[in-house]
């Protein structure tokens, strides 16, 4: 990636997807505060519910000797008794939170569009709003590729929050269509029609995998459009989210294979992380501190992977358009946007 203001747009080579991918990861890894903040936000939203669950568990165990067995490992008998009387988030406490099985359950629930516990759904919604808020600052920071001050980071968050909420409304409608129309079309109507006389489960596995691929491709497409709309909104300081969406669609359409390739590279990175987690996920009797450490490291990798999507897309966009050299430019004077900085860099280099 060009990193010097002396490199002109004309002289700059076309962005490669591997280059964008690697540069994206480099920028993410060089922004540890960013990753830590996102992980902290995740923890802050999850903690109140975890405390609530802790209270429920402690109350149910009371002075029982079952607690001794629960400390030693998974106490299936007690967990089932707890689940039978639990309300609210307590109902989500089962062995399906354990290790990589928990990951499988989450991914399966998401892709099969299973209903979430209402309280958990509320937490997820809050978290999505937090992501929308943070997105402006995250993209701005990752697009610049160098540290900015906290004030500048949150300034960008605030700057783009309402814009991204408007964008989220449009994107949300797209997701809603996917889950309420395409999902039942694929996994109820089509799947049922094709399997009603199917006698081999392995064919159903292949069929369902193909349907998942179709659905995930649709999700990925919407996600890509949204991602590049956000990138363009931040880098080009766009006010209109509809125009950002249009610009995103045009950008993707003109280089669809490379954009898809970059997306798949990022997906592959995610799979590598999941594969590692499969090996390292703690067992029920793993010491608590180690289980927590392993889980947080895994979640940190997941945060990195998510940020790497953003960063590599920003890098790719910058590499494709004329003003990418700004990333090594002088520190901006807030409230200058990344785009102003890029234009300054461009004018300087030309």
């Amino acid at each position: 990636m060009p990193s010097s203001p002396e490199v002109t747009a004309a002289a700059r080579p076309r962005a490669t997807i591997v280059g964008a991918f690697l540069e994206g990861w480099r920028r993410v890894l060089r922004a540890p505060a960013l990753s830590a903040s996102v992980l902290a936000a995740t923890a802050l939203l999850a903690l109140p519910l975890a405390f609530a669950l802790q209270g429920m568990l402690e109350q149910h165990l009371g002075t029982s000797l079952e607690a001794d067995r629960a400390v030693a490992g998974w106490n299936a008998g007690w967990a089932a008794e707890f689940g039978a009387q639990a309300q609210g988030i307590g109902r989500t406490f089962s062995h399906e939170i354990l290790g990589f099985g928990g990951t499988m359950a989450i991914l399966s629930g998401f892709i099969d569009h299973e209903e979430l516990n209402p309280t958990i759904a509320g937490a997820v919604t809050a978290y999505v709003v937090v992501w929308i808020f943070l997105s402006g600052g995250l993209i701005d920071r990752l697009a610049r590729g160098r540290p900015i001050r906290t004030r500048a980071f949150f300034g960008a968050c605030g700057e783009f929050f309402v814009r991204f909420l408007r964008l989220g409304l449009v994107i949300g409608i797209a997701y809603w269509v996917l889950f309420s129309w395409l999902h039942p079309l694929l996994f109820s109507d089509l799947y049922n029609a094709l399997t009603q006389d199917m006698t081999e489960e392995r064919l159903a596995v292949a069929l369902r995998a193909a349907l998942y691929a179709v659905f995930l491709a649709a999700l990925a497409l919407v996600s890509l459009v949204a991602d590049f709309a956000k990138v363009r909104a931040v880098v080009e300081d766009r006010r209109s989210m509809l125009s950002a969406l249009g610009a995103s669609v045009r950008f993707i359409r003109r280089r669809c294979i490379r954009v898809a390739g970059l997306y798949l590279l990022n997906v592959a990175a995610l799979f590598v992380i999941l594969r590692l987690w499969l090996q390292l996920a703690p067992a029920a009797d793993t010491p608590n501190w180690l289980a927590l450490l392993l889980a947080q490291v895994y979640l940190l990798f997941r945060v990195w992977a998510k940020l790497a999507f953003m960063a590599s897309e920003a890098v790719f966009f910058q590499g494709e358009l004329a003003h990418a050299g700004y990333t090594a430019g002088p520190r901006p004077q807030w409230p200058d946007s990344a785009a102003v900085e890029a234009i300054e860099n461009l004018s300087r280099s030309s």
Partner: protein
Amino acid sequence: MFRLRVAVLVASAGLLPLGTQARVAQDPVAAPSPRNASYTLEATLDPTARTIAGSGRLTWRNTSARPAIDLQFHLYWNAWRDANSSWMREQALGRNPRLAERPADDRGGIDLSRLALAGGGDLLARARFIAPDDGNADDRTVLSVPLDRPVAPGETIEIEMAWTSRVPRTFARTGRIGDYYFIAQWFPKIGVLEDAGWNCHQFHAATEFFADFGVYDVSLTVPAGWVVGATGVLASPPAQATSSATTTHRFRADDVHDFAWTSSPDFLERTERFEEPGLGAVEMRLLLQPEHADQADRHFSATRAALKYYGSWFGAYPYRQITVVDPVTIFNAEAQGQGTGGMEYPMLFTAGTRWVAPWMGSQPESVTVHEAGHQFWYGLVATNEFEHAWMDEGLNTYSTARVIAEAFPNRFVAVERYFGGLAAWSYEDVRWSRDVDGFRLNAFRPVATSDLQSTPTWRYWPGTASAISYNKTALWLGTLERLLGWPTMQAILARHFERGLFRHPTPDEFFAIAGEVSGRDLTWFFDAVHRSSAAFDYGVAQVTTAPATAGSFTHTVVVRRHGDGIFPTPVRVTFDDGTRREETWDGRERWHALRFTSTAQVARVEVDPERILLLDLNYTNNSWSARPQAAEAAGKWSLRWFTWLQELMLTYAFFA
């Protein structure tokens, strides 16, 4: 010479000379069973039209003490003719309301075209559908056929019959999926005439079947090249029709009370022989789905375990063959239909597995042991499943759990299925346990009080009938085992098997045997667990300590009965110097205070410390600790849940 001829005859019909050898040898004229409802049937499967054309002859002997003025037949398949049958209406009550919405093409039915006394007049014209259980005028699953002349006790008649059935998409383990056909309850089947009258119930959503023993000689014509599995043994080599389009397979089964069969062009056939000292050899014929070819050994080992343990604990399997059918997997019940797996018929049963079946998962072993076990509790001891389903399902769930624990120790863990049920994940931290998983306490807990178990099963609430029949019985049998010890429990079941073999034993007979073998009056026990729907829940309510004389303390332990169920309960108090006091509380009052004086402090209190009462719905409150670890446990597991929630939020926000 005569003995030899009978032995050969019995063996040729599928009955082993072992197991029932003594009976046959002592009285060569008598068959092991009453053989009062025997069928000679012919049926042709037309896969294109999805029909079965059947005809045949029933030889029926009145074994009751009363003359039969009419005959009553089950026409089970009419339950799936429309949405108005009692079976369909009951499905809508807490089971599966969507079954009634199946398209017409998926439904089934049976139409009689001939019913006549052999060499006599037509009986069909006067036949009418009756609904003895619920008066549902739209139900056509029981046909009453008035007779011109009553059939006297001990008299035998022959009935000729012909019918056409439309094979449904699978309902209740019967029907078709693609080219796979599983055909059960498929012919006009006579009810059981008892001294009190006909025991011929309508087809109900939550119950199975009841029939008399007989000899079945059945010729099945299917497309050439299709594999056929059926109750009994092949009586003659399959005969191909002149046109070569069809093949007829003739099966014969003696001393059985039902006949089911299956056919598919895809079955792989495997055979192995079961041999165990003291038990007769049995040919195990396994019809496998091709995609489960690598699971043949798992099916055989589970069948072998059932034949071995049930055989040695209760009594030998007396037939010389058992057919294990691996059914088409139902991975999408909404589209494919209900499953045909996990069902028992004499000398044949359906197991059930998945393409991805983890070694540590209990399928197919668990279902295979269970259904093979039904050869004993149902097939041989033929209790009335309409009225006392607990007698076969409950005894068998209990027995299955014991076999699994013996034959596959520490192997199974919880397996959950994801991504539309097509991917499996083994939770190695969640080990299979006989009490919780084998007896299915968790399924019973939420519905513990839904029905009085002594109510006829067909009157149970359809949505919870299984838990009361299967799980509650297994739990109280497990409780009885802990009260009496396994040797006594085994002796009870062995005597029940011995006396019930080829008969229809009643609940009272079983209860009497339990008392007789244990040498105890167990009326209180069966009153509590069987003739009551009360829930059991005992717990520690309070532990207090007050100074007594110098250096000693008075400890008061209050235990409480939270549920309505009453059961004598031991209470154990352990002091911090290691000493123990144990008392048995009769469990009748709502609470009970125990007082101890000791120089030591109470360290722990346990109500029912050995967990004898498996029906106790909440065992967590059964104990008290002076140094409770609830905070540590809650901290540990809420932290695990916390990271799970973090991951869930990250996953769902991925596309944000």
